[in-house]
């Protein structure tokens, strides 16, 4: 055994474990915004957030493929308490410059989304810790590490994983990009490129890079998608002026309606005490947690070499989970205001504790 290689490998695997947590941590905030949006209102915004959420799921798969390419019999853990942060929370190992919270579709939520997806070169480091400034920066460090390990040890030694564990591309659809099977340095760098470019933009441009990478219809990077919603206005290609990455000039294309009123958005609250709810609503909350953790479990099984069956299950659970969340968000917290009950992304065991119930193992 080459100790130096294995140490180097362990270091990268550890980063990929963090990457999985980061990618997932962005999803519940996006989901909460989508769940809160009443069907028929904010259609353009809803469709936009949906593509981002779906592409974040793609990123989880790409991270799984990276790790499975470099590690034989990798054991992913997505279901233990701790994998999902208890919101409000910092993005794992970030510079802690902002807090991610769960919120209904709102200006506040969009502010956070923009922070999550902000390109590194638009960031002024303000955080306390020495963590990454942007997700892109996190992946750039990973990319350098990867290049270094391959330069020293060669493709064959580094990419020793089981190719059968690469996730079946058929089950990714309705979002930009494709699942990239990782087998060597070039495909590994491509997977990272897809993640970074979909989030922050490609080549100092507004667009995601899927057009060049996969010959798809040109689509904005996540950061700019959220900027569009903030402005209620589409970007035009001409808005991508060089040296003006933040679009100081802003989107100047056609406008679309953004409506944060109680008619269009379920004003869900997330900082209530679940034990105060009526018993049947407590059961619904618990039901949601169980479904969401079944979904994470199905992803975990697929990443751990489970084949197509858990992917089909995960796909179906995404729908069931959505409908359950909307049912919870339709429960009034009281009859005197527009406040609704937010689904808490708490591990079932943790939620049971908060509800004063015994864990049923």
């Amino acid at each position: 055994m080459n100790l130096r290689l294995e140490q180097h490998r362990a270091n990268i695997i550890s980063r990929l474990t963090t990457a999985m947590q980061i990618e997932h941590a962005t999803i519940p905030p996006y989901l909460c915004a989508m769940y809160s949006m009443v069907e028929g209102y904010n259609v353009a915004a809803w469709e936009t957030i949906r593509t981002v959420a779906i592409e974040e799921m793609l990123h989880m798969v790409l991270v799984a493929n990276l790790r499975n390419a470099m590690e034989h019999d990798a054991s992913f853990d997505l279901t233990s308490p701790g994998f999902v942060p208890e919101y409000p929370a910092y993005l794992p190992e970030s510079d802690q410059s902002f807090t991610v919270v769960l919120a209904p579709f709102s200006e506040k939520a969009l502010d956070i989304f923009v922070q999550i997806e902000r390109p590194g070169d638009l960031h002024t480091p303000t955080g306390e810790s020495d963590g990454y400034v942007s997700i892109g920066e996190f992946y750039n460090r990973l990319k350098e590490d990867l290049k270094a390990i391959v330069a020293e040890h060669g493709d064959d030694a580094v990419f020793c994983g089981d190719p059968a564990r690469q996730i079946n591309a058929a089950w990714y659809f309705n979002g930009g990009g494709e699942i990239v099977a990782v087998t060597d340095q070039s495909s590994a760098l491509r997977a990272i490129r897809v993640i970074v470019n979909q989030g922050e933009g490609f080549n100092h441009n507004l667009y995601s890079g899927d057009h060049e990478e996969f010959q798809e219809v040109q689509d904005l990077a996540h950061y700019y998608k959220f900027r569009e919603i903030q402005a209620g206005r589409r970007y035009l290609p001409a808005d991508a002026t060089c040296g003006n990455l933040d679009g100081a000039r802003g989107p100047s294309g056609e406008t679309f309606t953004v409506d944060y009123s109680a008619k269009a958005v379920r004003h869900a609250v997330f900082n209530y005490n679940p034990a105060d709810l009526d018993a049947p609503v407590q059961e619904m909350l618990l039901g949601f947690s169980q479904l969401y953790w079944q979904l994470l479990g199905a992803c975990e099984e697929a990443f751990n070499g489970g084949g197509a069956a858990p992917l089909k299950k995960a796909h179906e659970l995404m729908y069931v989970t959505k409908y359950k969340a909307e049912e919870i968000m339709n429960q009034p917290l009281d009859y005197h205001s527009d406040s609704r009950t937010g689904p808490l992304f708490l591990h079932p065991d943790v939620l049971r504790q908060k509800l004063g119930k015994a864990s049923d193992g």
Partner: protein
Amino acid sequence: MELQYDVAIVGSGITGAIIARWLTERGHSVVLLEAGTPDGNSRAGFRQLTETFYQETAKVPSSPFRAQQSRDWPVYDSGVEAPTVLRDMAARPLGDEAQANAYYLQRGAEHPFASTYLRIAGGTTMHWMGTCLRMLPADFEMRSRYGVGVNWPFGYNELEPFYRLAEWEIGVSAERSEQVASGAPYPADYEYPMHKIPDSWLDQYLAKRLDGFSVAIDGQSYPIGVTNTPAGRNSHPHIGAKDPRFYAPPGNYRPVGDPDRPDQFGERCVGNSSCVPICPANAKYTALKTLRFALASDRGSASLLTRRIVTRINLDPAGKEVESLDYFDYSVVPAIKGRVRAKVYVLATNAIENAKLLLASGRSREEGVANSSGLVGRNLMDHPTLLTWALLRDPIGAFRGPGSTAGVTGMRDGEFRSKFSSARIEIGNWGWSWPKITPDTTVIDLVGADDKPTVFGQQLRQQVNFQSQREVTLAFEMDQLPDENNRIYVEEGVIEARHSEFRPIIDFSLDEYCRRGMANASKVASAIYDRVGATEKTEHNPEGRFGRKAGYFRHEDSETGELEFHGAGHLAGTHRMGNDPKSSVVDADQRSWDHANLYIAGCGSMPTMGTANPTLTGAALAFRTAQSIDRDLLAGKPVTP
């Protein structure tokens, strides 16, 4: 105003779209004249159709489009409502010509022609199920094999390569390994672009119980089984399958989603359970998907002009070639008249409208354009459909998934076809929604009329569940032979006054061949239900049901002595193709025998019906025609002098 193009296509349904895409990819300039609106062609417009569907109390195949019939017609001239923005041309009771919303008329015939059609960009594919069965070899040779009907000008093998093109253009989900069992040969190296849409739990339930079952007809045994149905609906791509189209990008087939947002919606069927009338995800093929590529092509050019009703085909003075098309343009207020010229003209509306336009353009109404055979408008065929339904012993999860994912096979071909119609048997995944409009009527019946006791609460919830979980419908789509007396025609003065467009007049009835076939089908249905332990609930109602007029007749061969049939919307036969100008309207390329620069394309060219839903065959014919037009244009002929 006069416009000029290489090719002018009337209609933007699947036939027009396929021809337009093929020719633009070959560098030609094409115009499509569409009588309806482009409503489904944007994400927002498509969503509006879905919203309309939600809010229509009767969720019939035209429900997404209905509101435009009554409420949203643009005012085009001094406050008068515009003509067909898009119209549900519903079948009306016989003789009832005064119905405000009726479009075509029926008189004289014994049975109602029970089908409707749409006028909208994308055509009938906007509300089709997406069934993509190939016809069987025998279907092309009914005269020589069974002594009935007529032969096609070519056999299955000659059309087979075009089936492949059509399957890849539509994006058909199926397994070649399962479909070869139908008896239609496929090349050994061919595979469909996508894996099959998986069988529903109901399909699996029936397959298990029908294993080893057969029915005897005239001493011959016909094995009955369950086979997955090829569907124009997105599934997972077949890795490594080779695209037969010359313009295909390299690599595996990429499912085509929403025409407006192709990478974001509709790349897979996600089980909305509403293929008819509308797939909210846009996972189902519509001709707009093909049109999108034609309109975006940078090799040639395609223009889609909507709200243009072609009213007349003008011939040159000698009557040899088509010189121009006149159209009525209500895309502007007030509406204007326009004219388009091209080297080649294609009629690609549907079997009724193609024939109507030809007949309306003649010097006399009887004569018509392209009608030296006298056959334009004659031999109108549909798939008269016998609905049967039953309650199963076990809950099978009805009302989930696409409307149908498999069929009961065994009655599509056999010696019996010399005596009576064959049938394709569709397994309905949506309970009794077609024959009985469940679950609505289930709830309405349980809750009860005002003077009846009511079922409510836990009982209601449980009984709704019990009933709905067990419903099954088998629809028998019957082969119908060509009959010259089944026809569409026009008459002086019978016009849609708002835009001087002739109304089609239809005569229609079922012959004894089809009646006997339907009687046989009713017995096969009963035998199947018996075998699977279901309780049959089929009723035949002379009045039709829920305001829909059905065909009704008595036949001694049927179980109960009476039968009722519905329309399938499969319009065919009115400009039949053949090898002889005396007995056909178009040749094997769908070119008019009478006018060299006129193609009359679509299912109207089919000489016989068979039992496959006709759209795939129409699409295959469109590819053949597109290649013929391309040859014409490259050869520099035919050019109007």
